[in-house]
Each structure stands twice: as C-alpha cells, then as structure tokens.
C-alpha cells in the first residue's frame, strides 16, 4: 500500500465525514454532581448501629427471628 493510497483514503474520509465542533457548549459540572449523588448510597452511622444491634439481639435471643419474620 503506497502513501498515495493512504492520501486517497484520507481525502475520501475527510470529504465524507464532516468536521466536528470541539468547543463544549455548557458546563457539565452540575450533571457530574447529580451523577455522583445518584450513585453514592450513603448509609448513616445509626443505620449501621441498628443493624449491629439487631444482629446481637438475634444471636442472644434466636426466637426473635420468628417475631421479626412475622412482622415483615
């Protein structure tokens, strides 16, 4: 394949594929922030405390599992 061939293909592509405008039209930070907020699931400390307490209770009083299941 010669350089002439390459140039022909290059010219054909340049004619067929229009140039793009590379300037960003708007600030994307608000959208990035929204995406960060949407995908970050923050579990507060008291939820973790509740989960821990529940686990301890179930270990100490296994029958509580039945009561808990009944109320689900």
């Amino acid at each position: 394949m010669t350089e002439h061939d390459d140039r022909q293909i290059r010219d054909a592509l340049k004619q067929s594929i229009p140039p793009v405008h590379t300037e960003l039209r708007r600030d994307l930070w608000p959208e990035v922030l929204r995406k960060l907020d949407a995908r970050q699931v923050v579990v507060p400390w008291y939820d973790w405390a509740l989960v821990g307490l529940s686990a301890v209770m179930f270990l100490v009083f296994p029958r509580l599992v039945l009561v808990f299941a009944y109320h689900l």
Partner: protein
Amino acid sequence: MDLLQRFTHGEIDAFETLVRQFQGDIYAWTVRIVRDPSVAEDLTVETLWRVYRARHRFRPDGNFGGWARRIATNLAIDHLRRNRPGQSFLAEPRGVPQPDPVVQRETQERIQQAFRRLPAKLQVAATLALIEELPYDEIASALGTSAGAVKLRVFRAVRILRKRLSQAGIRPERKNMRTTT
C-alpha cells in the same frame, strides 16, 4: 496539600476545580472520536464520574489530563462497539460514473458507513490520525499503546476500507469520488 492530592483524598471542591479545568479537553477529545456532540457530552460526564470513582488509583504526581483522556478513550471505544451500524450497505455496487451531487452524497454516506463498520480500535486510530490528523504519539498516549501500534492500526483500517470500498465499486479519488461498475 495541592489540588491533585486533595482530589485523591476525595475532596469534592478539588474535584470540581479539576472538572472545570479539564471538561473542555475531555469533551473535545471524545467528540473527535464519536462525532456526535450529545453523545460526547454524556461520555464526558461518565468519564468524569469514573475519574472520581477511580481517584484512589491516581498518583498525585501523575498527569491528570492524560489519565482522564485514556478513560475517555476507552469509554468512546466501548460506545463505538455497542453502536455498530446495522446490515452491510455495500451489497449493491452502483454503476453511475457521473459526479452527480445525489450520487456523490450517497457515495459519501457509503464511505461513512464503511468507516463506522471498522473494528472500534481501528476506527478510533484512523479517526484521530487520518481525519483529525493528530500526532501518532498523542494518539498512542490516549490509547495506552505505542506509536508503532497506532500506525499499524491505521494501516489495517486503510486496507480494510480500501477493500470494502472497492467491493462496493467506490474508487476514492481526491476531490472527486467515483462510483464504478
């Protein structure tokens, strides 16, 4: 603590500064590859989100722009892979030799489609090297490969394009693309 260190520690203010500083560059790079402004905007947002998520892997003494650009390039390649054009358009070569504007436009559309049907990695290398005429080193850096590998990809892209266009009866010439029997 400098900006990049603060970013790696997850400070959102530092990340905002970096976004405002680099979003234009990431967008410009992405739009050159995908050729669609709204897709490029979405991919830029996704890139920035991934950049933040991967902040622990970034070394504060590294090149933030280059790192973000590599992530953007990978996302753009994934996008091109997912959005391959449909069935081949090259089945019926046309036999009209005149440079009729309608025929000319059709020929251009066929070339566009042939180009989009290239394997994504070849398409990206060819877009950046042949259409955008960017230096091989710059392309190689964004693709995470060597300049030699980029040249090889461009060579393969040109060879495939030439073959497909030839099968479709299209002979690319400067200023005037001919469709032959």
